[in-house]
């Protein structure tokens, strides 16, 4: 009974890990610029890796090796966002402009959401203006 529960738990974890890694792969390929890619590349992938590593830890059971797996999980969770931040910061410092909602909306037809409509008025002039509606 417990064996069966463990088996299905492992299967669910592996499949979930695969799913989130798949999402991250799709995101890396589809998203328009480096900053957007960093979101899925490092964070969704972190969750995918975390779930798969959890499955491995569950399969190895209570032994020395699963301690390694937990350590790996810890390192992945610490280092991935830091690496993403480092890469995004280096992109910002080399002057890569992010594709923002306004510039992307010119070429694409996206359903207008409330947030984008009440921001357009203030963002078109200058870019760094304070938005009254959002900050008040």
């Amino acid at each position, binding site marked *: 009974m417990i064996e069966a529960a463990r088996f299905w738990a492992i299967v669910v974890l592996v499949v979930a890990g695969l799913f989130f890694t798949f999402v991250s792969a799709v995101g890396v390929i589809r998203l328009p610029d480096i*900053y*957007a890619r960093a979101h899925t590349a490092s964070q969704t992938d972190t969750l995918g890796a975390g779930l798969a590593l959890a499955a491995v830890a569950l399969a190895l059971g209570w032994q020395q090796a699963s301690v390694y797996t937990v350590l790996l999980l810890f390192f992945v969770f610490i280092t991935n966002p830091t690496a993403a931040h480092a890469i995004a910061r280096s992109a910002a410092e080399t002057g890569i402009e992010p594709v923002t909602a306004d510039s992307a909306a010119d070429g694409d037809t996206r359903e207008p959401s409330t947030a984008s409509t009440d*921001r357009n008025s203030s963002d078109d002039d200058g870019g760094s203006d304070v938005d009254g509606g959002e900050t008040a």
Partner: protein
Amino acid sequence: MVADRTLVPLSETVTVRQTVGYAVQSGLEDADSLEVHLVVALPYDAEVPEGKQQVEEAKQLLSKARRWVTEDAGSADVTVETAVLGTERYLFGPRDYADIFEEYTDDHDLDRVVLDPEYHPGVTSSILQPLEHELESAGIPYDEAAVERPARHERLVGEGTERFDRYFALFWISFGFYLVLGDPTYWFDLVTGVAVAGIVSFSLANVTFSFPLHRIGSPVRTIRFAFYVPYLIWEIVKANVAISFVILRPSMPIEPVVTRVNARVRSGLPLLALANSITLTPGTLTVRANDQRLIVHTLIPSAREDLFDGALERAVRFVFHGRTSARIPSPRERGDAEIVGGDEL
């Protein structure tokens, strides 16, 4: 007749005397007369009690430094101005200091800044740019004083009990880590673990903790952090599911926007924790930290709403300052959150 006009920021470091000497000497090398502006920038405003004391100390330092300048100048034509900066605003990190120096140099039409290599004002953290870099990007020419610095770790060594706390904490952390990798019931691993942890703590304790340890505060923070981790993981999973739907939809309704959030944290470690937590949650990515002003790239509107509601900020404040500190208004209510263009990066 060429005059050299120099700004020298001062603080109580071991090399402050040599820095003043260098500023005078190098200024007189290629100019006939010299105008030295000695300033002390304070992290707190002068109103609070410890602020008043700091202003007093700053004035004493300035009068000492004024005497040093007249000593070093000899018969040369040197004028000295002194000032205490930052009494009206709260200076957080290198960017704030660079700003205030920039203002001062513009007001007084100064040519250059001479920096003490040991001068590390305000909060320094690995995610913030160092002061030299901020001065460079503000376009202020600076000159690092050629001084003989003592070995760097000396600065980090504190008083007796503080030093003991560092050794104690690092010893148990590294011993625990060793036993996790080894076998806690095997005597050989226990003995070698004590030896290794001893070597590690004696050689590295001074560089491991760049922040002061607190005998009650630090363990309590660790326990609070243990509560924070499951919460963070729950947030990560929620945000991941939300973003997965957005990415897998054929129309991909993303809405990338660069925002700025002024985090209300008081030191480098909470800032690092907050910035990393924001990055770990999909949909929000910390691109820059300009002192406590985080530049965050957000991908979808719901992630942006969560960021502006400041749940993570409250959680980080809970970890570092306790439950009462967590009850602060959200960044949106404080007016600390705004949408900025891509130029801000």
